[in-house]
């Protein structure tokens, strides 16, 4: 077990939407590289199946779009991992299926997309911010990764609910990163690219999978991003032995 094969050894990582697509690939990739992993997904049977297949992971059934579930989820995450270093807000809702022009999008469909893609990450991050800041004070990397999309920056017709919610999530990430840097917590939005996932299949049912990125490849890229940031933070800690107290 060397640093090169276990670059995330000891990192405590939680991920939402962890039973399919990119989320599942991330759970597998993070576990393989030594992280302690808790994952959240809506359907209890699938959560149990993934947790049983990947011993050592902590499966948590819950819906991040529901306000009253957020604090119980946050409690279970930190109880399972004994704290938290990295939160990956990955769970996403496409909005209307099949995709629809905004003018044909029901208000409730837009609200549902915002609840999962914007309010859920906001609320869960806020509930877990104490744990992340505690990790930062102890000199550990503290990071929130919000899974974004090129639909956050490009106005694709038909992707109104999804693109709007992801654009808001991207901006939320930028502002929060500015505000939380002084507390040692970073917030980053990552666009993993077009992947061969159930969500993409819902959006573009006739897409050729050969033209899409396998989720495992995107997961590996995100693992490298986390590992690089963790190394940077470790360097910062060794330079500054008392980060809790300003000089």
């Amino acid at each position, binding site marked *: 077990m060397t640093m090169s094969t276990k670059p995330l050894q000891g990192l405590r990582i939680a991920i939402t939407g962890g039973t399919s697509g990119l989320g599942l690939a991330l759970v597998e990739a993070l576990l393989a590289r030594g992280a302690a992993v808790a994952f959240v997904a809506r359907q209890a049977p699938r959560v149990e199946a993934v947790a049983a297949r990947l011993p050592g992971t*902590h499966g*948590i059934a819950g819906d991040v779009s529901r306000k*009253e579930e*957020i*604090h*119980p*989820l*946050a*409690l*279970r995450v*930190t*109880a*399972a*991992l*004994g*704290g*938290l270093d990295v939160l990956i807000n990955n769970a996403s809702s496409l909005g209307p299926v099949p995709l629809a022009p905004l003018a044909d999008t029901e208000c409730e469909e837009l609200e549902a997309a915002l609840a999962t893609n914007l309010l859920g990450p906001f609320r869960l991050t806020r*509930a877990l*911010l*104490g*744990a992340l*800041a*505690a990790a930062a*004070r*102890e*000199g550990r990397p503290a990071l929130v990764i919000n899974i974004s999309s090129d639909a956050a920056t490009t106005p694709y017709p038909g992707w109104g609910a999804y693109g709007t919610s992801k654009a808001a999530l991207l901006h939320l990430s930028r502002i929060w990163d500015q*505000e939380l840097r*002084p*507390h040692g917590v970073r917030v980053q939005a990552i666009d993993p690219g077009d992947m061969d996932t159930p969500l993409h299949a819902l959006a573009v049912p006739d897409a050729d999978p050969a033209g899409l990125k396998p989720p495992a490849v995107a997961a590996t890229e995100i693992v490298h991003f986390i590992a690089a940031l963790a190394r940077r933070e470790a360097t910062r800690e060794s330079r500054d*032995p*008392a*980060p*809790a*107290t*300003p000089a």
Partner: protein
Amino acid sequence: MRAAIQPRQRPPDARLLVVDGDERWRDERRAALPAHLHAGDLLVANDAATIPASLGGIHLPSGEPVEIRLAGRRSLAANDVRELTAVAFGAGDHRTRTEDRKPPPPLRPGDTLALGPLRATLRHTLGHPRLVALRFAGTADEIWAGIARHGRPIQYAHAAAPLALWDVWTAVAALPAAFEPPSAGFVLDWRLLRALVARGIGFATLTHAAGISSTGDPALDARLPLDEPYHLPSATVRAIAHAKARAGRVVAVGTTVTRALEDAARRPGGLRAGPSLATLRLGPHTPLRLVDALVTGVHEPGTSHHELLRAFAGDPLLARIDAALERRGYRGHEFGDSLLLVRQRPAVPQPAVPLRPTG
């Protein structure tokens, strides 16, 4: 004393009575707390998240309803959640004052309690018929899932509406470890934490399993606080040494922080990082060794919380403070106003805090 009944952690009109050494007491806005600290001071808070520790259910041998309030734990280890100390209540809920609640049915070793999705077996009572040692069935993840789904925050009869978990988590809440909220920490928000940095004031945390504050039973209340596990991060030990070396003050946010730090300061070899169990009960005969000032809520005389204040100030002064809080209309209880009390007794001489970060 007026009880604060709305569960707002930081009402805009929250007040702070500043009582420092020269006895020029000041009525201040609580959000302005950083202005009353000095560059080089260190504010230390309890970052425990509050467990929804009230579990309704059935005492299976009798078929009678019970409310179990989780109250104690051996350690803060995430997987150490099977064996818990609890206080049992009979039928009824928080709308009845705890003093007037029905007692639980007689509890005997081996009795099983069905608490929503959770099953607990009574191991033994702990010197009082309502104070019990429980063993929960299942894995640690399953027990936490049951508590998260079925538990409710411990409620207060004086509150206007039932408290949700978000009402009782402080802004810095991290590991679920407190059975009742470390409510002095309601003063904290991220704007205030930034203001501390801007003024050169340090901020650090420890995690302390704040226990139950009152049970309504005088014999039981006399035993509070129970032993409480805490964890002292190495960064906090370093920050304390750093502040003390520069003649900065250690300002505890709440009685739980005070208890943990004073307990830690009395350990052989002095303050060291890592897990521990607070057994110390602070009062007039336990001079403070580490904590210089306290930010605390406003509570009535006679409570274990109030007893701890006697370590900071003599009884005549505390009586004057109580009278001033009453006269000036300060709101009491968890969501009430606050007091910044600077230690009035001379510190026990302690040339330097031994520094041994271990974890």
